[in-house]
């Protein structure tokens, strides 16, 4: 057993880290305040290959592996959780299913623009009345000649506001529940697509979270992803992989907050000594670091299992659940270590605290993760 990153992964980690330090970290406060990631930064991240890390080179990706992808999302999220989820949702939830379930023609048509960041990807599953219960999808489609016609609405769509390429789930017969659902690749610049709003959120404020209405959106039949009626399976497989991305995001947020708390505890003096000399602070740091390390082991392991083409359903659920709960815990403690300054935007840990919470909710709530894990334990 070897818990060391390979030299290639270390080279990647250090390259990403340098980029993040210089290009993302100085913008993180502004991204939160402006509710958007500057286009220039999205372009720079695309040029770095962050948007196509594990997709093959023949489709414009970097050709690296899932572990590399996890490292990219983690390092970016150390500085900016919004930028981290942009990469995660784009790669895992749009490029991922097109690569896994698409035909050769579909991959050639859609993946290059996604991998180079020309189009930003999103995953259109959640609806106002269908979140954890994806079988309750109420967006419908009918066949009309060589097109499918989609009607309905979607909500909480990460990256939706970019109006790029989406993977959309819709039902042809709601009474069939999950068996009636199919997946489609959609160009969100098509007629019939309306943005209802980009949500105003507690955290990851730089990330678009979009509500859509679809009014007779016509999708060519060749954009059906996988077989008709198999959309639910595609969604579940996609979320499995996506959880590794969210775990990496949560891990990065936790590490970013920890770094600040550790440094601050050495600088801040009270009662004539650095506060890290107090056992109350030392124990916090020990607990925070232990949870971060366990999250990292689980997340990297899930990524390695996916790379090895082994089953990773339980591991991805565990790493997402544990890393997200670590993120909320660590950011809360980091704020506590900072005292009053922790509540001030300039010190950044309050933003990280706000950014962390969503990781317990999206890509399957942690309650759903516990269902997944316990079902597998008892099956």
């Amino acid at each position: 057993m070897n818990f060391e990153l390979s030299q290639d992964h270390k080279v990647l980690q250090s390259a990403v880290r340098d980029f993040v330090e210089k290009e993302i970290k100085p913008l993180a406060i502004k991204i939160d305040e402006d509710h958007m990631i500057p286009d220039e930064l999205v372009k720079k991240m695309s040029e770095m290959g962050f948007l196509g890390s594990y997709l093959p080179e023949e489709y414009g990706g970097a050709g690296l592996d899932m572990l590399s992808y996890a490292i990219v999302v983690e390092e970016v999220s150390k500085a900016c959780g919004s930028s981290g989820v942009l990469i995660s949702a784009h790669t895992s939830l749009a490029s991922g299913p097109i690569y896994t379930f698409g035909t050769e023609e579909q991959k050639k048509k859609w993946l290059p623009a996604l991998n180079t960041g020309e189009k930003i990807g999103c995953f259109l599953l959640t609806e106002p009345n269908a979140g954890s219960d994806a079988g309750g999808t109420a967006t419908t489609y009918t066949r009309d000649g060589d097109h499918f016609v989609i009607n309905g609405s979607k909500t909480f769509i990460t990256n939706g506001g970019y109006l790029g390429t989406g993977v959309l789930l819709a039902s042809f017969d709601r009474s069939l529940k999950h068996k009636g659902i199919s997946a489609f690749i959609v160009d969100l610049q098509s007629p019939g697509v309306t943005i209802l709003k980009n949500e105003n959120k507690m955290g990851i404020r730089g990330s678009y979270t979009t509500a859509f209405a679809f009014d007779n959106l016509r999708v060519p039949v060749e954009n059906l992803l996988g077989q008709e009626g198999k959309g639910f399976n595609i969604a579940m497989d996609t979320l499995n992989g996506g959880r590794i991305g969210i775990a990496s995001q949560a891990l990065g947020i936790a590490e970013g907050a920890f770094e600040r708390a550790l440094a601050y505890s050495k600088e801040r003096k009270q009662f004539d000594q650095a506060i890290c000399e107090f056992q109350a602070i030392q124990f916090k740091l020990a607990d925070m670091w232990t949870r971060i390390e366990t999250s990292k082991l689980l997340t990297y392991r899930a990524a390695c299992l996916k790379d090895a083409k082994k089953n990773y359903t339980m591991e991805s659920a565990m790493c997402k659940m544990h890393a997200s709960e670590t993120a909320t815990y660590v950011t809360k403690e980091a704020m506590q270590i900072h005292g009053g300054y922790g509540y001030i935007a300039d010190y950044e840990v309050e933003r990280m605290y706000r950014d962390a919470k969503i990781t317990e909710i999206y890509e399957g709530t942690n309650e759903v993760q516990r269902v997944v894990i316990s079902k597998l334990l008892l099956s």
Partner: protein
Amino acid sequence: MKLLVCIKQVPDLESRFKPDAAGVWYNETDLAFRMNEYDEYAVEQAVRLREQLGEGCELTVLSIGPDRVVEAIKKSLAMGCDNAAHIQDAAAYSKDPWQIASIISAYAKERNFDIIFTGMQSQDRGSAQVGVIVAELLGIACTTTIVNFDYDNGTITAKRELEGGIKGVVKLKTPALVTCQLGLNVPRYPTLPNIMKAKKKEITAISVAELLKEESLAATTSFHPPAKKGGGIVLEGDIADQVEKVIAILKDKTAVLR
């Protein structure tokens, strides 16, 4: 054209250094290593020249040291070097600049490089001798601490940094060696696709015993980590004075005002 760039992997200078068991160098345990900063400028400049010259130009990166230095080599390959030589030496840290330069010149002698790039100095040993000794051993032209570089038809035009902010321009015919200073360029980030491509580039491993025939001329006999730092520099005086002092420090210690 054949180009060579020589790099060293050094510890992150913000690390806490402790002497090794013999007390002559730092203990490597728990240190994070990265490419020497000045060597990054050298790699960037070499890659830019490689791009300028296009087909028919070959850029080799060389590093001496234990297995860990392959990380710095791989970064250089991802930045655009074509191939690499790893001179395997677990005891590179104990060699003096004369021996290191002898190893590099022994490697370079038969290979007839047109231009060799090195950093101005390493961030850990800081002798600033290796580049100039290599040039001397190879009998080629050399200039140091360059902050601008141009090449055209066998001639290098380099701007050098002199003391006190003064600059000078030198011209030299190839073959030549230049040592690179802060301010020469902004090194590129290795992109993910280029990190992938670098995996397929050849790294030739050569044992140091094949190249090193020289004894050391200067032995480091003891090592002293810095005393625990205080709270940095505190500037005093009225505001105008303080501003002048800050500007002087920024000019002297960083590239932001150059």
